[in-house]
């Protein structure tokens, strides 16, 4: 599904990624851990197509096609989703309006009929239940005045509404209390099936108590330096990164 080959990238003249290679197959859950500044968020942003990150070498293939030249909105249409570490607050834009615009934009891209107001509302109400939020939530401005947990639930709400094939979750677990963590983990688990893949970027193994990753990767200095099974996460939490 996703092939990252020898990816080098820089931002504002500074080289961040120094040859990342990673292969993700349908149904897999990959976890990327690593110290601050290792390039984890950069990798997530490069995958989603943020233009201030410049790819200097290597390639990213999604469904066997290079997506380096593809606009972020088209990557979303193709089935890629990024859950933001810091979701942006947008005063003045109603959350429902935003969600509807997003859902219909990807539906249009995928050649599906756009949802009218009634069908959209029906669909979104079901998804709201999954992330345990009430209706009033979608009538507020996007992320404006949301608590940390609400912002992350809103990200998961967007994910399950947009139906991506590959979800990149950038520190979706940070700043959450136990309840929110459980809700989000369940949201992800419910969405997971053998066609959908995930890349989870995290600092902590606690989220992994709720889910079954296939691989743990350690990203340091812009490279994947170690990969292993789930147990590697425990080891990293105990010993840190210096031993690698």
């Amino acid at each position, binding site marked *: 599904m996703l092939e990252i080959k020898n990816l080098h990238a820089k931002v504002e003249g500074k080289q961040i990624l120094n040859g990342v290679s990673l292969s993700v197959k349908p149904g897999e859950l990959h976890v990327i851990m690593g110290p601050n500044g290792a390039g984890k968020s950069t990798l997530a942003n490069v995958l989603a197509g943020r233009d201030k990150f410049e790819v200097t070498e290597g390639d990213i293939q999604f469904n066997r096609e290079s997506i380096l030249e593809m606009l972020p909105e088209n990557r979303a249409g193709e089935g890629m989703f990024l859950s933001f570490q810091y*979701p942006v607050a947008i005063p003045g834009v109603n959350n429902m309006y935003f969600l509807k615009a997003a859902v219909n*934009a990807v539906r249009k891209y995928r050649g599906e009929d756009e949802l009218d107001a009634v069908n959209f509302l029906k669909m979104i109400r079901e998804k709201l239940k999954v992330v345990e939020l009430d209706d009033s939530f979608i009538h507020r401005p996007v992320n404006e005045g949301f608590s940390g947990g609400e912002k992350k639930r809103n990200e998961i709400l*967007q994910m399950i509404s947009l139906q991506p094939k590959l979800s990149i979750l950038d520190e979706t677990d940070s700043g959450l209390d136990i309840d929110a963590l459980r809700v989000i983990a369940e949201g992800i688990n419910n969405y997971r099936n053998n066609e959908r893949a995930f890349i989870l970027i995290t600092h902590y193994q606690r989220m992994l108590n709720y889910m079954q990753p296939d691989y743990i990767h350690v990203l340091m200095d812009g490279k994947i330096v170690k990969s292993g099974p789930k147990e590697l996460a425990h080891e990293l939490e105990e010993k840190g990164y210096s031993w690698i």
Partner: protein
Amino acid sequence: MSFSNYQNEFKKLLDRKYFSAVIHPLRKDAFSKLEKIGFPTQKWENWRFTNLSALTENHFLISEVNDAPQSKLDISQYVIEGLQSIVIYNGHFQQDISSVPEGIQLLTGLEYFEHKKGQVSHSEDSPFDLLNTAFMDSGVCLIVDKNIIVETPVRILFISNGDSSIMVNPRVHIDMGMGSSLTFVEEHVGDAVSLFQNEAVYITLEKNSGIEHIRIQSNSENTYNMANLHVKQLEVSKYNFYQYSDGGNFSRSNIYVDLDGENSECNLNCLSLSRGNQHLDNSIIVNHNSPNTYSSQVAKSVLFDKSTGVFNGRTVVQKDAQKIVAHQSNKNLLLSKSAKMNSNPQLEIYADDVKCSHGSTTGQLDDDALFYFQSRGIPKNEAFILLVSGFVSEVMEKIKFEPVKNYIDQKINSWVA
């Protein structure tokens, strides 16, 4: 600065038969005062960022009889449901297509001056108020008597058309009696090739009265707009003002509010959308002359291309005006490197027990927000429209009369798109 064009026009005006000689003394007095002080220059504090040279370089002529419509006007393109309209065409009152809702007494021409026994000028008149008094067209006065709630909103529709370079000086007085209320819309439209519109509006609010005033300025791209708005408020009166401005080559609103009575409240909301070489400019002075008064100023501008904007907001709290609350907020969105905004919020406080806040921000569209929307599949141009609409939405949001709110929303959407 050459003033001779205006002097010539003033002489012409005094000779016109159809301008009543009854108010010549008033006009002459105003004009001679204006000749003494002259138009503002950029050395004047409130005019530092406002270039008025076009007003003296161009020769604007007073509107003639043949500038009035030659046949019955078609105003179907300006229909807003649920209101009644008074139509002014190039400064001429169009009686046959004008009507006012029940509860409003409409006085035109000289009637108002007789009603007020000639006491219509103000001691602190600014140059453009004086110019308006000197040249004023057939005025419109709306009187709402004590305890009358006017259910149907009224609009004055100012249409300025034609090929000649003309000057119009609309004059509006609104007197709100004790306990009365009104929704008043003024809309400025037309495709005049060259126009100088210098409007003066005087609103007085007696005790317990309220007015919702919506001003829509969508004049032709060659128009020079000057709006002079004076509001005087007595006890427990409420004034809500909404200005939507996207027209004209130059547009400046001078807004003066006097909160003279305790528990009076004003909410001033201005939205300016500019592109090309437009200059949209707002200058607000709110005087808290009485204790327990409330004021809020919210001004937002969105600027494309080489357009420029000004916000001067001044809130003055007089010595004995304790327990007042005043807010000022000016936020601007620059959508091009050549656009320019000058923002100057000021508080002048002479009392000690007050709650005041002011803030100003000017910036570009948030890249993070744009990427956030794109990452959700929303194409960049659509994301851009959503974000700009979102930025401006709060300013007109509280308009109570839905048809006008929707009318303005449509204008915003087509402007942004």
